[in-house]
């Protein structure tokens, strides 16, 4: 249904061109959930905004690539045609519900705007639909809440409203850019639950973007791991979480606090910083931070290659080599721990 082919989205800044998205390809089928995971600054948010063409232009520009939605390349569309897709076919919810609603308009008006932009309905009908939507997303007393202003809602409630806005026209794809990051943990779970229910009810495909592997594991069927504007590993949830084949994904997983883990509950951070996207490192972008990097990694920029029918990895280490390297490292660490004691 949606196919992104070798997409590049670059941003012009004072210091030079930032290659925020640098050659990304993936597809999403109806009703599917794709998770995109990566650190902040990995380009995942710019990628999400690219699909909706919501990156401010300038400074963002698209030197290469295609975003094919139902046979049309969204990058080539005129503004007018694009607007028919935005909100109607593809909708988006954003990271910060506190600032994503217009503070001076009533909730109901903002919701009805989403409906009336694409459907010529009498106002009473639109209002009825808006109340339905608010009920769907679990806002209590929706008729009364229609007349409230955003500042009278909590963060979680606002995110529900934003989901309602996104669902207003029953879109085929819902893009959720860090939908729970700004929320409390308990609220996070509720919002994710809500999104799942919505998907079951309407059959919406979801692209969920998060830096939180927990969120991705809970929601996604397919996962893309992004690093410095590129996809470094993609596959089914099982591939990513149980057959991890890229050192970066492995580092991300290790940075998660795990209760079920046999090793001590250490919270590991990935050492170093995400690379400078204006002057990316030579060879593999991850090599300066990679615990398994060899001399070769500084030279060769590995391409995304197939490991199994659905599993793609961008690393020069083969599955066997990676397994052995991991084992060695764990041994070293165990010794280090013993020394500490």
């Amino acid at each position: 249904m949606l196919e992104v082919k070798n997409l590049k989205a670059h941003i012009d800044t004072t210091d030079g061109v930032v290659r925020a998205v640098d050659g990304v390809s993936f597809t999403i089928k109806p009703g599917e959930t794709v998770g995109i995971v990566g650190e902040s600054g990995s380009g995942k948010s710019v990628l999400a905004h690219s699909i909706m063409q919501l990156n401010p232009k300038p400074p963002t520009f698209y030197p290469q690539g295609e975003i094919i939605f139902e046979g049309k390349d969204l990058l080539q569309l005129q503004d007018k045609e694009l607007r028919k897709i935005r909100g109607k076919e593809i909708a988006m919810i954003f990271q910060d519900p506190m600032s994503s609603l217009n503070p001076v308009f009533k909730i109901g008006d903002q919701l009805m705007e989403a409906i009336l932009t694409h459907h010529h309905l009498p106002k009473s009908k639109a209002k009825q639909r808006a109340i339905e939507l608010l009920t769907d997303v679990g806002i209590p007393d929706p008729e009364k809440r229609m007349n409230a202003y955003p500042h009278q809602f909590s963060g979680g409630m606002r995110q529900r409203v934003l989901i309602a806005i996104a669902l207003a026209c029953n879109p085929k794809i819902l893009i959720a850019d860090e939908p729970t990051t700004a929320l409390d943990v308990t609220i996070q779970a509720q919002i994710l639950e809500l999104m799942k229910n919505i998907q079951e009810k309407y059959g919406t495909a979801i692209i969920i973007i998060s830096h939180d592997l927990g969120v991705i594991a809970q929601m996604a069927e397919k996962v893309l791991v992004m690093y410095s504007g590129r996809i470094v590993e993609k596959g089914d949830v099982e591939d990513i979480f149980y057959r991890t084949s890229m050192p970066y994904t492995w580092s991300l997983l290790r940075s998660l606090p795990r209760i079920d883990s046999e090793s001590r509950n250490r919270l590991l951070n990935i050492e170093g910083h995400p690379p400078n996207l204006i002057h990316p490192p030579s060879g593999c972008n991850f090599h300066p931070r990679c615990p398994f990097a060899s001399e070769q990694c500084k030279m060769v920029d590995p391409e995304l290659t197939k490991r199994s029918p659905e599993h793609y990895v961008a690393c020069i280490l083969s599955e066997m080599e990676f397994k052995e390297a991991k084992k060695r490292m764990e041994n070293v660490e165990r010794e280090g721990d013993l020394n500490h004691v």
Partner: protein
Amino acid sequence: MLRYTLRRLLAIIPVLLIVSIIVFMIVHLTPGNPAYLILGEDSSPEAIEQLEQQLGLDKPKVAQYFDWLGSIFTGDLGQSIYSEEPVTQIISERIGPTFSLMVISMLLTLLVAIPTAIFIVWKRNTMLDPLFLSGSLLGTSIPEFWLALLLVLVFGVTIPIFPVAGYISISESLMDWLHHLILPGIVLAAVEIGLIARMLRDSMLESVNQDYTKTARGKGVKESTVLMKHVFSNALIPTTTVIGVTIAGLLGGTVIIETIFTIPGVGQLLIDSIHRRDYPVIQGVVLVIAFVYVLINLIVDLLYAFLDPRIRYD
């Protein structure tokens, strides 16, 4: 909102008190005896003494101030030395033309400034923006009276389509009223347009990439609607605060413009009174204008709160 309103109302009391003290001081700290100034230097000592008593000038200054303040509360601003009519009456006769001029120029200002700002923000990545910035800077650099002279030159001589002097009351003829106020209105608006449009542009540019505009664009809303509805409504709130400044500019400007276009308003009254050394009238006019200005600022403050639901429902 109620608490906010009450707080604003209370806050203007000390301001008005200071205003009254300043107005009082302006006349009473004048070098030389006001009675002399009024009667002329060659008048007899008896006449001076009589006038001093009549004006209460023989009392201590503080007592004079409180007498004066007391009479203001009863609506008595004294008597004109020139025409011997009550100052309150003189001013109320002149307030109509000034008010008309203010309304016309304010409307003109908003009518031009708002669409200009929206257009500039819409075309924000083109060379129009720096052009606009230069234009608004130029606008604030032109003396109003000089612009008035130029317009008198153009419309009085070259293309005489607008009258360059006089005033017709709105009750006589709406068209004539408007016709006479167009030129002075344009002059007064010209300076303020740059100011308001600039402020509106600045605050629109600040909100043009806010998250809520992304939500709106994500709905498939047209860019022009995003600007005119979502961005504008948010940018309007901070812009209301400069409306107060604009009105101060208009109030100051009317004084000059009324003189040039011979509009019988409060401004012309003030200038005439200054030339006649008619101190009670000068004092009265200055006090009334300052009072009106404080009131307008209060209204602007309340409007600000009303436009922002975050304050309105607090």
